[in-house]
């Protein structure tokens, strides 16, 4: 859809400024209890002086979302949520109040029912040829969103300081469902639907490709027909008869179905919750399927008047078939775009036609048909999570309670991949004489995250007159290890003996990997909530954390915070907080001087050990100093309610990678040291309004946030030294991740020559990579992070009908589409965009020397407005046997308003390192677009 800038602006302003439309009760209150999770304790929402965003049970009810992180999208101001791509288990990038780090972690801490769980990213990168195909796996995709009662996000230091060194990126507190006292519920949810891609990029067909190939060949000074890749049994004559639409083969209609059953029963003394679910999703990319099973049991019991016990057990299993997307090699989504439309899929004798040279060892050919055949290609991942928590509470005396909780979260991720000898050749490691001959490959990887958590708290509550005091002190031990196992083998007697153990040849260079990796955090914490006359609120929190990750000289770190509030009346509360949190996401062994072995460091087949890094004993967590000022308000008898927050979040001791001169002779290219600073400053608004009440109700919920990031200190490093991609650098005084590109100046109408601006703003032809490189400038006014983003939900109810229309939006961010560049230059081995036939397209040259260079030609405004969810429901209440039944129809990602010309503006890349995740979110390369789904479902409550 082609839409002008102005139109988008009009739509935005129109949506927000319709009079009377605006509101929400800061969904800050869990409707069931009016208590909110505030970290190790619940406090009445009204007493909260820090900044906590919530999704209450009502908001979570009837959500049709694929995973837990997606449930938060657009609902909580300041929580920026982007799914990496449209694969069923793709990682979802979540940023609370902007990106606060470059080389440290940027994802928040996830805590489920009081216990921190493994939520990614992996500590150890995947190995083997299928190692990083597809998207980075989202570990939380194994949790059934239907089990969630509420989500709280601790956004400011006042709220998050109690999580100390793990709180800097915000804390997501997830509370799962439990029975209500003296109630029994049985609930059945089922939905099923179809999925399709939200967008389709058009590519050249066979005849057009040949025509442009010849043109390009002649444009580059040659005569006659342009050359085709040298592939056996392939020539101009065969090419002329072929018109393969690779994309249509790999993309198809997907489907999704989910069945959940839950039962709960409560008495005055006990509560019990049980649930199970099954989800099956066939992705829009053929072969990309997910199946998920979850089971959960939760109970609490008041054994005596003093002693209570509780247990919480969950088991999740998911099975996933991965296909290569993005930059992955092989015949997946990328190959479907790159492969020439004149390549047939099969030779006349029925064998696969290799679109690219499989003689590049270790990498399979890129024929998409071979990858869609499970006989020839199989990349199956399985995840298992066992979550067991048990605790006891003991009321020592009135107001004084001791709690001890122990928990274990065991997460296993296994991957088996197999590529038959029909699509690959033996690797160098397979042994002499086998490299370059057809040889099957199997790899097996098991990655585990075991989290053990021990927590003891002592709390004291006292109300005397106008004074209301709650004090809590405690300590926590968090132990996390991640054993990793990998093996691979080549040469199999049969395609049905697919395990590395059955391989004829072990890879003699990288036979296997077995690593354990450990980190520990121990923390003491104390917090006091004091309320005077139900009007004055005061909280003081302090946490002391020590972690094995910190350098030997800085083992203990202190994180204090103070927040205060004043309630004018029920209608207005003012809040202010100041405090410190830390970011311990710096890698397990970053501070250690250490030696290790790498598979290639062997001489005469004897393993070699070497110094990996110099170590930095002074390394400590980044610290965030945060000020938050906020107001919660309620107008017109609660018809309009909301909250407004302003914050200033400063990252101090920011960790940077100081590059080490080559002459130092260590493997790692740099040294992580605390040396920089960064600031995030922003404003967040949540509004809920009850526009119309009565038989017909109309509620509106809006969340919108603006965040401005600025690097204030780069520790003396140059812009390109703080970089994880040559097109993205960093400047002091500007937002992190600045596009560093030559500016595109269009096409010379006379010659068709692509033009750029040089550094003196003179228009020059883009004739060489060196010229483009020398014209690079930073584009400060085209940020990769949005100027504002959020969501708008309108809910209408009339008698038994409900209708909700949820829109998410992102405005002012730019995306560099490197995939578009790949498909814009004719190199002889790749297809081109269909627009290449247009006159306005720069003149094509065969093997253009600028093909590898990005300019702003591929940098696009990626503002969008998306009809995220449209649901129409019909509920019947109080029937025989049933308490309630509801049927509904949902459309997700129904339409998108954007000027972005590529696959999808809602994309977040898929990366393995912190620096890439922090800086490169604005780069897309042949990523699978989000899916549009049409779903019909039913909820039944007994």
């Amino acid at each position, binding site marked *: 859809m082609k839409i002008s800038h102005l139109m988008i602006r009009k739509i935005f302003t129109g949506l927000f400024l319709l009079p009377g439309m605006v509101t929400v009760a800061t969904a800050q209150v869990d409707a069931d209890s009016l208590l909110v999770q505030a970290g190790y304790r619940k406090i009445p929402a009204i007493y909260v002086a820090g900044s906590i965003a919530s999704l209450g049970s009502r908001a979570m009810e009837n959500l049709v979302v694929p995973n837990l992180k997606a449930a938060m999208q657009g609902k909580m101001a300041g929580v920026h949520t982007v799914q990496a791509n449209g694969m069923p288990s793709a990682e979802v990038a979540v940023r609370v109040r902007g990106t606060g780090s470059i080389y440290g972690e940027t994802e928040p801490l996830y805590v489920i029912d009081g216990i921190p769980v493994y939520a990614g990213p992996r500590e150890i990168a995947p190995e083997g040829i299928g190692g990083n195909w597809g998207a980075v796996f989202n570990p939380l995709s194994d949790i059934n969103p239907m089990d969630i009662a509420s989500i709280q996000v601790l956004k400011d230091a006042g709220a998050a300081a109690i999580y100390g060194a793990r709180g800097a990126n915000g804390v997501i507190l997830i509370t799962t469902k439990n029975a209500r006292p003296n109630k029994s519920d049985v609930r059945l949810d089922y939905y099923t639907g179809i999925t399709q891609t939200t967008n389709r990029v058009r590519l050249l067909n066979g005849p057009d490709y040949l025509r442009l190939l010849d043109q390009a060949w002649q444009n580059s000074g040659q005569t006659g027909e342009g050359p085709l890749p040298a592939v056996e049994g392939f020539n101009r004559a065969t090419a002329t008869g072929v018109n393969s639409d690779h994309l249509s083969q790999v993309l198809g209609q997907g489907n999704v179905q989910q069945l959940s059953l839950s039962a709960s029963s409560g008495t005055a003394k006990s509560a019990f919750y049980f649930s199970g679910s099954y989800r099956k999703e066939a992705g829009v990319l053929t072969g990309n399927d997910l199946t998920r099973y979850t089971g959960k049991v939760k109970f609490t019991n008041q054994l005596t008047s003093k002693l209570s016990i509780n247990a919480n057990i969950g088991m999740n299993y998911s099975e996933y078939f991965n296909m290569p997307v993005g930059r992955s090699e092989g015949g997946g989504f990328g190959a479907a775009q790159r492969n020439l439309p004149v390549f047939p899929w099969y030779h006349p004798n029925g064998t696969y036609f290799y679109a690219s040279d499989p*003689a*590049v060892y270790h990498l399979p050919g890129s024929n998409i048909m071979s990858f869609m055949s499970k006989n020839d290609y199989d990349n199956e991942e399985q995840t298992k999570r066992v979550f067991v928590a048990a605790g006891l509470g*003991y009321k*020592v005396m009135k107001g004084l309670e*001791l709690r*001890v909780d122990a928990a274990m979260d065991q997460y296993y991720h296994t991957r088996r991949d197999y590529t038959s000898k029909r699509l690959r050749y033996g690797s160098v490691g397979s042994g*002499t004489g086998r*490299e*370059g001959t057809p040889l099957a490959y199997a790899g097996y990887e098991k990655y585990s995250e075991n989290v053990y958590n*021990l927590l*003891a708290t002592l709390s004291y509550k006292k109300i005397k007159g106008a004074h209301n005091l709650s004090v809590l002190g405690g*300590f926590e*031990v968090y*132990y996390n290890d991640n054993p990793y196992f990998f093996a691979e083998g080549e040469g199999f007697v049969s395609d049905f003996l697919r395990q590395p153990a059955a391989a004829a040849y072990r890879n*003699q260079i990288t036979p296997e990997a077995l*690593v354990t*990796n*450990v*980190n*520990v955090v*121990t923390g003491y914490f104390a917090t006091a909530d004091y309320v005077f006359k139900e009007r004055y609120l005061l909280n003081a929190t302090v946490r002391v954390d*020590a*972690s*094995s990750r910190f350098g030997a000289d800085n083992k203990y770190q202190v994180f204090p915070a103070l927040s205060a509030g004043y309630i004018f009346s029920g209608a207005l509360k003012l809040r202010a907080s100041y405090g410190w949190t830390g970011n311990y996401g710096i890698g*397990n*062994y970053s501070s*250690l*001087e*250490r*030696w*290790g*072995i790498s598979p*290639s*460091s*062997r*001489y*005469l*087949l*004897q*393993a*070699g*050990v*070497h110094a*990996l890094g*110099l*170590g930095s004993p002074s390394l400590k967590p980044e610290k965030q100093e945060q000020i938050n000022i906020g107001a919660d308000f309620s107008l017109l008898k609660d018809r309009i309610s909301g909250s407004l927050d302003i914050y200033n979040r400063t990252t101090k001791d920011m960790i940077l990678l100081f*590059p*080490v*001169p*080559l*002459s*130092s*002779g*260590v493997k790692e*290219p740099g*040294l992580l040291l605390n040396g920089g600073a960064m600031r995030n400053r922003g404003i967040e608004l949540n509004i809920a309004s009850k526009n119309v009440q009565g038989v017909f109700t109309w509620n509106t919920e809006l969340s919108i946030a603006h965040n401005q990031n600025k690097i204030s200190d780069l520790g003396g490093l*140059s812009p*390109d*030294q703080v970089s994880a991609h*040559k097109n993205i650098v960093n400047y002091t005084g500007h937002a992190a991740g600045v596009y560093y590109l030559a500016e595109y100046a269009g096409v010379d109408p006379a010659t068709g020559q692509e033009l750029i601006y040089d550094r003196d703003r003179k228009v020059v032809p883009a004739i060489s990579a060196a010229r483009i490189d020398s014209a690079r400038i930073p584009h400060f006014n085209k940020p990769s992070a949005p100027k504002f983003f959020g969501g708008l939900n309108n809910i209408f109810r009339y008698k038994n009908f409900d209708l909700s229309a949820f829109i998410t939006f992102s405005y002012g961010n730019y995306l560099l589409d490197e995939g578009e560049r790949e498909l814009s230059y004719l190199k002889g081995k790749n297809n081109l965009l269909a627009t290449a036939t247009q006159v306005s397209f720069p003149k094509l040259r065969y093997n253009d020397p600028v093909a590898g260079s990005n300019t702003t030609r591929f940098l696009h405004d990626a503002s969008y407005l998306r009809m995220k969810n449209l649901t129409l429901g019909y509920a019947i209440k109080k029937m025989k046997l049933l308490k309630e039944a509801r049927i509904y129809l949902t459309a997700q990602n129904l339409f998108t308003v954007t000027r972005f010309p590529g696959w999808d503006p809602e994309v977040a890349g898929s990366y393995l390192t912190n620096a890439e995740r922090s800086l490169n979110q604005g780069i897309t390369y042949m990523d699978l677009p989000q899916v549009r789904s049409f779903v019909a479902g039913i909820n039944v409550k007994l």
Partner: protein
Amino acid sequence: MKKFFFFILLSLPLITFQACEKRLDIVPASVSPESLILSSVDGLNGGLNFAYQQLHTDLGRHFTIWSELLSDHLLVRGGAVLPTQQFIYDRNLDAVATEPVSSTDPRLVSDVRLRDMYNCVNTAALILRACENGLAESDLAYADNKDRIMGECYFLRAVCHFELVRYWALPWGTTADNSHPGIIINEQPVDDRISQIKPRASVAKVYAFIIRDLQKADSLLPETFVQGVHSGVYKGRAYRDAAKGFLAKVYFQQGNYVQAKEMIDQLIGSTPGVITGYPLQASLTQLFSARGAENTDPECIYQTTSSTAINASQATYWNSTNPESIYPRSAAVASKGIVTTQFITDAHFYPQDLRLTLFKTLSDGRITPTKYCLVDFFNIPLIRSAEMVLDRAEIYASDNRLEDAVADCNTVRQRAQIPLLTIPISKEALLDSIRTERIRELCFEGDRLHDLRRKKQMVLPGERAGIQPLAWNSKDLVLKYSQEDMARNPQLENNY
């Protein structure tokens, strides 16, 4: 009782906590600090394995072919598969310093080569420090292996510096006192990044450092591998004569013929025309197809030793179906490395010369060397007695000991089964013959550029079109430091 219960409850978690506190100091099992890893002979050997691997990643591979690509006897036809090779062949050394490893790996190819060498240097320095501090003294095998380990460290470090200074600095002799910039010397292990922000040492200092280290290696290394004394991994690595061989090469490169000859005499025997140590072998093909530590060619003083079990990474460059190779072993892949017409003129082989078996005539009549593609993997000769004896012949000839020079040169001619030189012969004619013999014998083994520089002769363009001849000490033949490395070390002076 109630109070007691309360106390127990409270103290239980505290005790547990104390126990967990100890876990804060994690010694990872997969990676260890230097003090532990270098505390045994196995650990020290492991470090050395890595150092050798880093050295031989380039020695015998990149550094061998770069010498040929920069000089005049090789023609790269149809574009080298590795862009670096093409850039070097085009003498476009700016491009070499800016070429990333791949589109997803932004490291620069030439930086990776530098890093390989310095990784080797630093590992050697760390092992030396561990030996000086006696980290492994409690290991029973240490006493027998200490000298050997230290000798290997000095050897490795010297060879790395020698390769670096020959490619990243103007050649020896460019200034009268060799005070022009050499490379960064690392004599001490590197513990921090600040100490590495330092200028390049002069070429004179670098050569002095190399010679000092090689002399130490010469005095410390054992003559050969001794079963039961040395760790098994030592077999096939550097013995004492490898240090002597490199000393001879270094002195010869400097034009220090007196000391070069002394080393050569020690290696092959001091009687002209008679090679007692490392005798020349009748089979030339055997020289380029020996495999493994057990089967090193008797003519080789030092070589990149391949394993017998697998095509170790060292050999893939040259001689497999690996598309990187410019002399592919597979007949199906077109050879990109062709000898130039200048080589044919310079070498003017006798038709009966046995060394012609190391060439192949292609269907279009052009000729490609096959030294490196006889078998799938093999020990790559780095110093062999033929080189030593030709060095000495040239030394004798320059010293007017013509008879001795003829005798030495004839050893090589005899093996090649071509007519022997006879006396009388003029000094000039003899020198010319010896140098021609050197081309015939050592062609494409990485000798050409360094030899032209030693002789201070012009480096001709070969068959490159539109390229001017370069002086032996032209900056256009010296590799550049990357902008990235210049930024990391502001005191680094570049080669422009």
